[in-house]
Structures are given as C-alpha cells and as structure tokens.
C-alpha cells in the first residue's frame, strides 16, 4: 500500500526515530528495515529518506557520523540523540491517542484492522 504523502510526512519521522532507538543505522539499512518491518507500507526512496534524515538532523533529533565500515566502505551512521528520545516518547503518546480515538470512532476495530464495512 502506498501511503499518501501527507501521511508519510507524519509517520515517516516517527518510524525512523523508532528504528534508531534500537541502535544506529546507515541510510540503506534504514530503508530496508522500514520496508521490512512495516510490510512495505513505509517503504520510501532516497528522495524521501535523506531529506527526512537531514531534517531530523537539523532539529537535533538525530546525529550523523561518517565512519568506515568493516567492509572498507565509508558510511554515514545515524543515531538517536537525547532530544530525539524525548521526541520519540512524545510521538508515541500522540500516536497512541490517535489510535484510541480512531478506534472509538470505529475507523479501526480493536484488532487494528480498518473497519471497511462501515463505508
């Protein structure tokens, strides 16, 4: 499923912060993990990922470091900052609240599946 741009804009940064909370990653690794763990829902290309990463870096939520990997290739690894951790907690709370609201409205049934029959 391809998300609308506005939805991706809202969910993408939180998803990246969540992934980085598990450990540092480089760009391609993030793309892979996002696609795999979200069932390709949050799959994004380079034109979407890197601007997002640079924005998060500008906000001080993540920090990038250039390092040489074990295979000799030079990569830029991103990790979560303390500010990023706080932001992640806040985002989680907000997404939980949104999820609860939509559930009460019947948009999402308690199992997490959209209630398509109501349309």
């Amino acid at each position, binding site marked *: 499923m391809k998300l609308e741009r506005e939805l991706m804009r809202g969910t993408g940064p939180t998803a990246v912060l969540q992934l980085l909370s598990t450990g540092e990653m*480089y760009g391609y690794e993030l793309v892979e993990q996002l696609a795999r763990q979200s069932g390709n829902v949050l799959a994004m290309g*380079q*034109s*979407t990922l890197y601007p997002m990463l640079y*924005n998060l*870096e500008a906000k001080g939520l993540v920090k990038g470091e250039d390092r040489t990997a074990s295979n000799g290739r*030079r990569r830029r690894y991103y990790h979560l900052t303390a500010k990023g951790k706080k932001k992640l907690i806040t985002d989680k709370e907000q997404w939980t609240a949104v999820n609860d609201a939509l559930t009460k409205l019947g948009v999402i049934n308690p199992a997490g599946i959209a209630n398509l029959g109501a349309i």
Partner: protein
Amino acid sequence: MRPIAVCIALQAIVMLVLGLVSHQTMQEFVFTTLNCTLVLLIIMVCHLGGAIGRMRGLLIGLVFPIFAILVIVSVADSLRSHPMAVTRTRHHLYYDFTDWRLLPAILIVGYLALFLMHRVSLRFTAILSSILYSTFLASMYLAMTWNDGPDRWLAVPVAIIGWLIGMLIVPAPPGSDLSLRRSFSVIDSLQPRRKRQVLTERILADREITSEQQQFIRDITRRLRLNITETRSVVEELIHHCLDDEASRKTTGNLPGSLGDPSTGARLITRAKRRCRPPIWHAWVWTARGIQAALALAFLTYLVNVYRFHTAEPTITTDFIQILASGSASIPEEERSWKSWLELWKEERAIGDRVLATEETGEEYTYSEWGSEPPDGVADAYFANFARVYGSLAARTRQLASDNTIMGWPYGDRKALDTYISEVGISAEEIWEFDQKYEEDHPLYRSVYTIPLPYLAHLRRSTLLLWADAREAVNSADTKRFIENHRAIVRLGEYAGEFPTIVNTMLAISIQNATFEDISDVLSQNQDAFTIKELEKLYAIVEGTREVLPMPLDSVLLAMNDLIQRVYTDNGNGDGILTPYAYEYMADTMVMTSLADGTERHGLPDHQYRAFTGPARATIAARRSEAIAFHFDYIEAAKQYAALMPWERTRETSVDVQVELWKNNDYMFWRYPVNLYLMPAIESLITRSDVLRPTTRTRALIAIELCRYRQDRGRWPNTLTELFPDDLPTWMIDRFDGQPLRYVLSADGPIAYSVGADRDDDGGRWPKHDGLASSWQPEPQSWERANGDWILFRLGSIQPTEQELEAMEDDQ
C-alpha cells in the same frame, strides 16, 4: 572565493591610486576613496549582472544601478561644495564621471552588450568586459589627474588592472584552453554548479552503480544549491546507498530500491541541509532578505514618490501682492502718479543716455554712468551739456515728485498696465525689459518674488538725474534748485518704499542715501554754499526722513508664505508636499543670479536633473506647515535681533550666523530647500537700515548743523554739545557704540566721526589701505582694514587724501 578576493584586491589598488593622486589632505583622500569605492562597486555589480546572463541579472544589472545612480548623484551633488571635496579643478572633472551622461551610458550600454554577447560567445564577452573596465578606469584616472602631467603615466597600470578585473568577471568558455582564466573566474565562484558537476563526476568515476542510479545522482546534484562540502557529503551518501542497494540486489535478488523524484529530492535535500547550517548563516540570510526587502520597499517608495511628486499641483488661495500693496491700493486713482511717471519714463527713453563729454582719449561720459562726479577735466563741458540735454526732464521730474503724495503703482495688475502703456504709445518690450519668465497659468506667475517692478529702475535713473542736476545747480550757484532736487530725491525714496519688500526698501535706502551723502560732500567742500535759511531747509528735508527705516520683516514672511503656497500642495488643512515648481524656481533663480547655465552643474538640462532627483529630495523636504513654521520662527528671531540696539548685538544673538550654519548643513538644505535658498542675509539688511543708513543720514545733519553754527557764530564749535546745549538729538548717537558722536577741532578744522567697526576711538583717523570702518559686525572688528574711524564730516573731503594715504603707508 579566491577570484572574488582577487577582484576586490585589484579594485582596492585602483581606489588607492585614485585617492593618492587626488588628495591634498587626509580628509580628501578618505573622501575620494569612499566615492571611488561606491562607483566601482556599482560598476562591478552591473557587469556581473550582464555577464551572468540570466533574467535575475536584469535586476542586478539595470535596476540596481539606476537606483544607485540616484544615490550617487544626490550624494555627490550635496557633497560638491563639501569642505572635504578635492580641489575645484579636479573634483569638477571627477564629478563629470558621475554625471548623467557618462555613468549611465557605461552601465546600461555595457550591461546590455555583455548580456547579449554572453548568449553568443563567452570569449568575446570576456574581451568586451575587460575593454569596458580598463577604459573606464583609465579615463577616470586621467580625469582625476588632468592638470598634473607627471601623474598621467599611471593611467597605463590602472588600465591594466581594469583589464584584469574585466577578465576576472566573465567565465571562460567551456572547453577553452584558457585554464588559468577558468580557475580565476568570478562568475565561476558565483556559479558553483559547474564545480558541483565536476565533483560529482569525479566521485562517480569507477563506481559500480547502474547508469540509472548515476543519472539520478547527476540529476539531484545539478539541482542542489549547496556548497561544495555539503554537496560532496550528499553525493557520497547517495552513492553509498546505491552501492548498498546494488550489493543487496546481487545477494538477495531483490529489485533495485526506489530512487524517487530527483527534482523533489534535490529541493528537499537543499532545504534540509541548509537548516543544518550554523546560526550565523541563518542570521545572514535573514539580514540579506531584510536588506533586499528594504531596498525593494525603498525603490517602490521612490516610485510612489515619483508619481506623487510629478503629479503634485499647488493651490493658490491668497493674493499676497494685494495684501502688501493694500496701503496704496486704498488711495483713489486720481491721487496716484504712476501714470505720470510712465510718461516721464517715455520722455527719458526718447532722450536716451547721451554722451555729455568726451576726453581726448575718446572716453565718453554719460550721466547714467558718471552721475554728478565726472573727472575734473571734462566737468565743465559735462555739466553744461547736462543742463542743455536733461534740464527740462529734471525739472519735470522734480515737479512731479513734489505734486503727489504716492506713486501707487498697480502691482500685479498687468492688464491695467499694458492697457495704459499701449494708450500712451510706450513699447511693451522696453518697459518689460526684465519680464516675468512664467506664463499666466504657471503657479509662479505673479508671485511676490517674481512680479516685475520696472518702475524701480526708473526711480533709480531719476535719482541719478536729479542728483547730477543738483550738482550742476551747486556749480552754477542755484542753491534753490539744489534743495528742491534733494527734496524730490527723498520723495523718490518714499515711492520706492511704498511696496514693502526687501528690494524696494533697499532701493529706498540707496536713493535717500544719495541725498545725505551729496549734502555732506557739498558742505565739506564749500561750507558757505548755503545761507542759514537754506541750511535750515536742508535740515528739515533730512530730519523729516525717518531716522531708522525698518526692514519689512513681516513682508519677508508674507513673501515666503506666498512662495510656499505656489510650490507646495494644499490638502485643505494647511499642509502639503513639495512640488517640482520649487526646484524649478530655485534653478531659475540661480541661473538668473549667477549667470550660470544649470547644465554645467549636472551635465544634464536642469529639468531632467530635477525630474530624477526631485522625488528623492521632496521625500526629505519638510511639509508645508513645517516650512511655514520654520520661516515664522526665523522671522521672529530676526525681529528680536532687530529690536536690540545695534551696540547690544553679539555673535550669540546673530541671526546670520545661525543661517550660515543651516545653509552649510546638507540635511537642513534638503529639509528646507525653499526657505534656506531664499533666506536673505537678513542681519546685514537690518543693520543697513538701522546702523549704516542712520549714520549716513547723520553725515548730512552734522554737516548742516556745523556749517549753520559756524555761519551763526563765526567759528566752529569746540564740542558737539554746543550745537544742542539742552539735549542731544537721537541722530547724534553713534549707532556703533551707543555713545555720542566724537568730535575733534584741530587747526585743520572740525572732524566729526563715528568710532566705526572696531568700536575704538582712533581720534578721527581713517583706517589704512582702503579701510572698512563703515562696515558693521555684531562685535568689534580687530582686523587692519577696520582699525580707524568712520569720518562723517571734515573740511575738504571726508575721504582720505593721497598724502594721507602715503602717510599711512609710511607708518607701517
């Protein structure tokens, strides 16, 4: 940044050279260098705009310089007479290069040529740019050193520097073999896109990524607007991403990852990367935006002001001429003599200015040029012919002056005048010799400042006529005619003063001074020229004039208010803005008074100059109500000054000192142009009426009284109190120090005198060398030409004789 630094360094050398060759003081050096900086920066920006060859270059290359020209010319114009300006000769030539013809031509033509040629050939663009720059700088240098031959050879290295600057600005053509120029191109450093592309290709070289991925990276890089370091970081990260993707595809067989839209990606990456820049960069961006916004706003405001200025029209509501002429306007027409004076004028013109005597050398003498003082060698023939040619005219003039009470000139009523002129057969071109410049529908037509008063010239000539006739009368012992002539001259002065303006009052003073001086001179030369009764008649004539003829300060205010209503708009609440008519009038006045063509000052006809700079000046100029209040305050200060007795005045209370400070202040001159431009040296006018004129009047009165006393007692008085034992009349007070006039009775006769400009009693001695004891300043003058006394009466002549002057030389 290296090319830009080199370019700036070269320009700095040029500015230094120009400043060094043109300065005489450190202030001039700084002044010239700053001006050169401003001009060269604008030239460079214009060339950059043209050489960039884009639409935004249009803004840089054309609009900015045009706006900047306004600043340069306005600043240069206001600084033209600044004390820090270079010497007159040099700065005149220097400013020729900031004038309207040369600078805009270089900027606009040069810009367009570069702009067009950039599309065709960068090689020729570079050549043209270098030629333009070198020519301009060399010419500027030659102008600065026009009068100094040995400095002119420096124009060669200046031209070379100009050539280098021109070459630096334009980029090398792609693929050219001029690799050195490429690395030094200013344009290249301003357009890093090419460097980004070179960098990208260098990084992509030998990387094992697909051609699609390579093209994606090229597409993103081409659209990035980042510096080299940021670009390198982004490119390498993208390449590594592609390499990881390629490796994954090989090991897992997955499809290649999505690349996305490169233009969107480049835009988002640029935006995001710029957010990562340090705070000072953000501060600079916002500052630059603020400056651009301010410049744009200033330019828009200027455009609005241009519109407002050139569409502004004054509303004339008050006839100030009628107000000023109300005194004579109330007199019935049959009691006014202006028509008779016009007929006399016609008769005078018919006679013309005849030659009355001729010397052996061929020099000719007329009464309008020599008055009553022809040289001794031709005096007899002169006066004999004078009586024959002008005797009857003088008699009729004398008769007319004694018949009526007022002249009653129809001020401002041009139609009545023209009607009568044609009725009596006078040529309108002759009488309106200095006709009004403005048409009937022009706001400045029939203003107090511009209304023609041709009768004043006639009054002056009539004074000369009567004065010469009076001297002829004395020579032929016709004392009765002498007395009547001077009675008539006093009346002529009163006619001149009927219209209470400064010009009229000054003429009135000048006319009556002729009587005072002539009576004094005749009595100095011949103490027995008149009987006691005749002396009493002369005394009555002089004493009947006002001791102090006050300056019409209220009229000065009314005249300014009249001008203000003609050059300012009126919003109905007594306020308004300046209109182009103000600058038109000031320019016309300057041309009339200085006999200079306004074109010489700006290189453009005045009306074109005004059209451009007028809106900017009018923005700073005071509004109507403020201009009126400013002049009111000035006149009130002048009145307070005039109310002081002359000997009580000081430099601290001086009005003219304040006016001089205002006039030398560029901001004040821009703020109150109409007020300051037409602000007379009112202090000197006040003192002329209440110090110099009364003292000249005193000359006649003291001469009459001394001669009358001598004829009555057979001797000169020992002191002046013998003339008036009870109370000294006010005319015997010395206007310079408030004390009684000084008097010395020596073996050579009596000397009555004023202490004069130095306020120091020198015993009745003239200053040495063309003395100026009769000048007046707020405080005692210590300079050599004032060191002496103003002699009011003595036997022979009050002027120093040749022997006395030689004796003064010996005393040195």
